[in-house]
């Protein structure tokens, strides 16, 4: 099974992954609150964590799109726009 793997210690909290993800699901529309993942920013500690909603049941996703690993793209867009490489693909498949 192929899934996304996150390395929170590399994340800089820019949220480009959320922005790109929302655009992938609805071309022409940016809405990070609909993305399949979310960056939680702790500005007090300078630490960030990426929450993946892909494995969660629908009621916990609260209207967010389920992750489809960007099947029509060469690679998931969250990975493409993550400059510090905090998101990667894990597993075998396809």
């Amino acid at each position: 099974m192929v899934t996304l793997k996150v390395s929170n210690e590399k994340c800089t909290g820019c949220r480009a992954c959320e922005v790109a993800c929302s655009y992938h699901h609805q071309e022409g529309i940016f809405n990070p609150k609909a993305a399949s993942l979310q960056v939680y920013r702790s500005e007090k500690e300078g630490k960030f964590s990426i929450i993946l909603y892909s494995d969660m049941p629908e009621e916990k996703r609260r209207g967010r799109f389920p992750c489809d690993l960007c099947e029509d793209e060469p690679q998931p867009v969250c990975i493409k726009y993550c400059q510090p490489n905090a998101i990667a693909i894990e597993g075998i498949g396809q």
Partner: protein
Amino acid sequence: MYQVLPTKCYCNRRDRTVITGDIIVQKTFGFAGKILRVNLTTGGIWMEPTEQYAGRFLGGRGIGDWLLYNEVKPWVTPFDPQNRLIFDTGPLVGTLAPCSTRHSIEAKSPMTGGVGSANAGGHFSPELKFAGYDHIVIQGRSRKPVTLWINDGRVELVDASHIWGKTTWDTDDQIKGDMGDDAIQVVCIGPAGENWVRSAAIIANRARAAARCSLAAVMGSKNLKAVAVKGTGSLRIAEPKPFMAAVDHAWEKIGKSPVAEALIGFGTYFMTPTANSLGFLPVRNFQDAYMDPRKVEKLAPEVFRDEYETGRIACFSCPLACSHFYEVRHGPFAGLKCEGFEGNDAWNWMARFDIDYPPAVIKLHGLCNELGLDEDNASSVIGWAFEAYQRGILSTKDTDGLKLEWGDYEVVAELLRKLAYREGFGDLLAEGVKRASEIVGKGSERFAIHVKGQDSVEPMRALKAYTLGCCVSPRGGTHTRGAPMVEMMPDITDEFAQKTWGAPAPTGPFSYENKVEPVVYVERLHAIFDSMNICNIASVWGSLDLLNPDDIANLYSAATGEHMAGNEMMMIGERIHNIEKAFNTLHAGFSRKDDYPPQRFMEEPIASGPAKGERLAKDKWDKMLDRYYELHGWDRETGWQTRKCLEELELGDIADDLERVGRLPR
């Protein structure tokens, strides 16, 4: 609590009408579509469409400047309730366009009485757009402290009595706690803004300061403690595929740029050693411009990275993440954790006060953020006090018993606190360096470094184009209008310079040759970037060809569906700059005489280092000013605008206003 007032529909084309929140606006692309208006005196909240201003002034600072010009009359003083406080986003903010993250703020400046404008990054601006607003225009004065709470379409003024007096860090915590949501975005003022200190900054994300011009004091005068936003809406793009092509092009350009590596590594602080080698530091309040390299070595960018950095921290949609997070583990400041700083901190603390202890620089930076102080202005006025003490003009009798000796960072920290609370000697410092030096007198005006009344930390003397850009800046002596970095970019070729601003490349950092054209070019470029609210790191401060006007035009055209070329954008940039210039002429009466550098820089040469002997010669400065006015189409003798130049920019109304007060030369 106040009720959201219904607003009338401005749109009559049914096919493009959508209902958003409480106002009916046309379906807009790129923009969120609405301007939120708040009258703190009456509690009235209403909205209007952004569209009526968009094409002519781009967005962001462009629209903000136009609203300020039209709504604040020359007889309104900065702390008058009729002064406006305008928060701007921009048409690309909230999208995947790189570095599209900033908010700009305008008001009549308490420093100069002219145009006040500041700008900060973080995550507030995109959140405001996702809530549905391109701008917030605030007027009036609340009877008690309030927070403006924007929860998508629901907007209300909530009591802030329980957070009045708190630092910006505690305010941020308290508001997020009160609203029960850690992910909301807050901009707020600290004690400095509440006390109308003329060195106050509006802080977002605990560390992103909209500084200079002391707009936080205007916010304090309105009894507005904070603006908190939660936005869950969408932004629409007019041409999705061309937009993503422009986005990818921009990301690639930034990612491949050589300057990206330095910014990712050290932020803008990376320039510190180069700055010293160019005589570009305000050493001991500008008594010199060059420091012993061994001292600079102690505060080298690598020292902060290796010993204090725990990670990097990015603004919204930014591939560079030029900000760094620091933790101090040992010594008197052990336990301090905060977001790090810009190149300015080398000026403000290391050079200005001759401090060579790295944790002290982190502490002073963090303290300014916490108290809601603009560290450039604060260091300027405290630096002046240190020099006055050194020269015996001030004594311990004046300074509440403090000995103001160079290098003593504990005294600097104590003065920051006194400044923010206007306590004792701090009350004098809170007036800014121009007013404070005029009160004290005794020749201290000579080393009060300001232009047009706006405190300066900018080392003007060695680099001539940079100095010109600072001195002619409409917001006073600051570097974020026309000051180009061309003298620190030795690889600029004649070919590039000719193509970009129509003159050969500048000849060496210290000369006066070919220095005016890049200033005018950068003034226009800044106006475009501030109107999009894309970070200047992606152009002026990084590399001039990083994102150029054509790249921005491509992004803007695809996002909004309103096609525009790079040179058309530059023309609007010139228009925006002219609005600020006219505001200054009308409100503050500034003219050619106000475009000269501080007296010290014309009389006192740099004492040591590679730029030793450099000072500004009046005759050469006059020639630069002549050329500068000529390029803008302004009058050489007075420095004022002409009807011809204003009409070419479709600003005939402004020409009429200037003519009425006799400030439109024939």
